[in-house]
């Protein structure tokens, strides 16, 4: 289903307008603080050829539409070697009106339609999701294995914690920390247990829209049938998918929150008490799906009028989706409220943060690219002189920890929920090992 926010005619118009300026390869020009960390795009950093950049993929889209190139493996490899992190779009839209990320996603949809996508490894996990409701090839009934007896759930609660596949099966420490914090704060909530299914994000990002929409409908039907008012996510990917991608396709009437937003509110209201000194130097990695990509498309019901020949304007002005409304403050507020903790920022933060390297099926199809990207981000974190790298996404968690391990870095990784637990003087429960069997 093509959504109204980016009609096909808009796509056709935009792909003719790249000015090939290379702005998409860098973070916004006025934010460049060093040569080393000026870059925005993992794909161009690793593969170097222009088509790997956001602008390069716009050119591919045009060349494809013009019949100059065919749907070949060569094309597929370039188009799928992209984490869809959207950093190119932030840089481009600083001044331009193109939508590089939307164009990349649409190009993938088009390749899927002609049987040229997704990548074989991605197709494998899509089949697994169809069968088992998760991409990790784990039995559906094991989705709740992380739940211990001491966790308090309230079946009548109007708040739902949507755990997501990665925290359910691979990064259980995040799910455990989340529910312990909620319990400690006295929040009434429930989880869907066996009625929770993959949010569909890893499917959507490959361009396989039909399967994604099946899962979207399953999840929305289930949540709506329970009269839920608020859904909370500890996974940035699930959060973005519900908040932005579901909302584009099917309106729903519950509120969505990332746990960092909820925890920040709970700290402010006094329900969560951070009492223990945590004397750590910490740097925070903004997950793409919690930051720039978690900004909703604003409905626009205006008119495009020709101001003068060749110049059209939108009345009222169409809001530019440029990452401004991502969740940046809540995690930083939390970290700043942890006693004794020192937050040191990396050079690339907020809407121009560098990607961890795992998203959009890259971890599965191109594990080398995912690992190289993670190591680039680890290096940036190390350069802050922090001891701890913290983030708020189980998917970033896995890939960044893989990067730490592979590079032999002394950095330690924590999810922000684990740091909160420490500050609450509760020992977090960590899994002993990380695993690479992820998307």
């Amino acid at each position, binding site marked *: 289903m093509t959504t109204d926010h980016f009609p096909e005619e808009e796509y056709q118009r935009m792909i003719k307008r790249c000015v090939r300026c290379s702005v998409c*390869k*860098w973070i916004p020009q006025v934010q460049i603080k060093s040569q080393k960390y000026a870059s925005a795009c993992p794909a161009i950093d690793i593969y170097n050829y222009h088509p790997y950049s956001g602008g390069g993929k716009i050119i591919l889209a045009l060349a494809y539409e013009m019949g100059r190139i065919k749907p070949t493996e060569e094309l597929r490899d370039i188009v799928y070697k992209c984490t869809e992190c959207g950093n190119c779009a932030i840089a481009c839209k600083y001044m331009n009106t193109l939508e590089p990320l939307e164009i990349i996603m649409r190009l993938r949809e088009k390749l899927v339609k002609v049987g040229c996508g997704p990548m074989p490894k991605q197709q494998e996990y899509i089949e697994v999701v169809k069968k088992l409701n998760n991409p990790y090839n784990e039995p559906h009934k094991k989705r709740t294995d992380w739940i211990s007896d001491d966790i308090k759930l309230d079946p009548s609660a109007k708040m739902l914690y949507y755990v997501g596949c990665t925290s359910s099966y691979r990064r259980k420490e995040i799910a455990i920390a989340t529910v312990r914090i909620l319990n400690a704060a006295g929040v009434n909530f429930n989880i869907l247990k066996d009625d929770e299914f993959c949010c569909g994000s890893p499917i959507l990002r490959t361009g396989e829209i039909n399967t994604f929409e099946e899962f979207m409908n399953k999840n929305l039907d289930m949540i709506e049938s329970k009269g839920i008012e608020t859904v909370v996510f500890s996974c940035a990917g699930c959060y973005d998918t519900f908040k932005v991608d579901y909302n584009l396709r099917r309106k729903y009437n519950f509120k969505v929150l990332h746990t960092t937003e909820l925890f920040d509110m709970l700290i402010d209201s006094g329900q969560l008490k951070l009492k223990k000194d945590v004397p750590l130097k910490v740097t925070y990695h903004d997950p793409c799906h919690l930051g720039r990509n978690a900004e909703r498309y604003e409905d626009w019901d205006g008119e495009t009028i020709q101001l003068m020949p060749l110049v059209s304007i939108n009345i009222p002005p169409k809001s530019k989706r440029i990452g401004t409304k991502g969740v940046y403050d809540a995690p930083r507020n939390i970290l700043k409220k942890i006693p004794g903790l020192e937050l040191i920022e990396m050079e690339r933060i907020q809407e121009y943060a560098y990607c961890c390297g795992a998203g959009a099926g890259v971890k599965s199809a191109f594990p080398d690219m995912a690992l190289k990207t993670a190591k680039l981000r680890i290096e940036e974190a190390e350069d802050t002189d922090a001891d701890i790298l913290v983030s708020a996404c189980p998917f970033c968690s896995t890939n960044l920890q893989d990067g730490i391990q592979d590079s032999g870095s002394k950095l330690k990784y924590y999810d922000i929920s684990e740091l909160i637990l420490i500050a609450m003087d509760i020992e977090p429960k960590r899994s002993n090992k990380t695993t690479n069997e992820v998307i």
Partner: protein
Amino acid sequence: MLKKEILKEFQDIVGSENIDDGDVMTNAYAYNWCIEFVNYMEGKDPIPFSPVPKAVILPSTTEEVQKIVQLCNKYEIQFKVQSTGLGPWNQPSTDNSIILDMRRMNKIVKIDVKNLYAVVESYVSGAQLQAEALKYGLNVHMPGAGPMTSPLASHTSMAGPGFTSPQTGHSARNVLGTEWVLPSGEILRLGSIGLKSNPDWFSGDGPGPSLRGIMRGWMGTKSGLGVFTRVAIKLFPYPCNTKFIARGHAPMYDFEIPDFIRAYVVDCGNFKNLEKIYLRINEEEIALICSHMSNFAIMAIFSYTIESLMDKIAFGGIKKPLLVVIAARTKREFDYKQKVIDLLMEELNLTNIIGIKYDPPSNFYAECLRANLGYHGFIATGGFQSTKGQCDTAALCIRTEKKNIPIKKNYIKREVIVNDFGEGAWMTSYESGHYFHMEVPTLYDQTSLESVKGMAEYMELSNQLDLLKHLGIPFFIEGDKLHDEWGPLLMNYNKWLRKIKEAFDPNAVSDSGFYISGKNQSDLKNE
């Protein structure tokens, strides 16, 4: 595609992952901005694709570049070089070319703080170099194209006027020692880096060989005469305090405005006043930026969308605007500069719009310092290009602007270019002297065939006007056809240029689409 055995030889130089001759890759490299009207002007389909290169190769060292060029000579394959790649000049002109994408040559080799220069490879961007130079209180000249472009490309191969030209000059003047892989495959080191004993980069014109005129001349050879791999460029004292902090979110960052910086938009009223105050400001050497632009362009540099451009209506009524930005390191210096400009305005009875009718967002100052203002030219239609390219006295630059207005208005009336009342121009001084630069940015729609055709015709007429009215050489006199039209009127310079090309590139391997081809090649084309 390349023949397998030739591809193998290139792979042996750079490794198989650094050369690609696939259809997808090569077609992607055939695209560029403005190629559609270049194609139209050459009688081809007005599509945004040039001839498709046979392969794209990514060298990482000067030695690899040398071997690639030698191989091109051996197999008579042309090469086209690009760094950050903005503009049609990066495109091959024949289907017998490979593209050298210099992306892997991305090192800042050296920042010599004491002697005020930096040595960079091809793919260092202006913003990257400025960010590093800033750590030493230094600044770099950046061309109007913006901070995302390559200083090496601008300094060796392109024109290079920029918004900060009153203080930082222009690229042709700022180039020092240069490492150059000639079309023959020899490596030539120009200036002091060419010395046998104690070579260093500090000078481009001796001690050691100086061939700057041949190497780049005024407009650069745009890859028509070999490959530049490393270059030393001048650095300048940063004009104000070096804290460069932009908080908040894109695009309207909350920039911490340095203590001593101030913008003026002077309503000059007429060309006469514009010229007077322009000359006086430059005589006094007080401006970081001193640019004459159209009202439309002034509105654009304060805007991030076409809709927000409409809010800048305060600028609609002013005539012959002049943007001046002064910056200083001390209060005393700042007070002096303000006093001078205030006195000049008083003397000529001119007004400053800034602070009275409009206050710029703080991010405007970040963009002034990072030389990002030119990029605002894309917000109206997404497509623009400059005609003219005058480099002369203020009087001649203004005369050129005036003469061009009726031609431009004619094409505005035909609705093929955007209506800036014919007055769209950008003019700056170089080094605060008597020497000025003027070009005429023109907005068009690259997706409209009529607009592309109109833009191309307008550009040709505009060039011819310069010939008829003796206004000087336009910016983009490139390629055999235009050089051969202009040469006979200008002491047959084209013949000399052609001799240089023949001497340096005997096998015609360095793609001359935007330079000039050797005699034999040119004759062949004519036949």
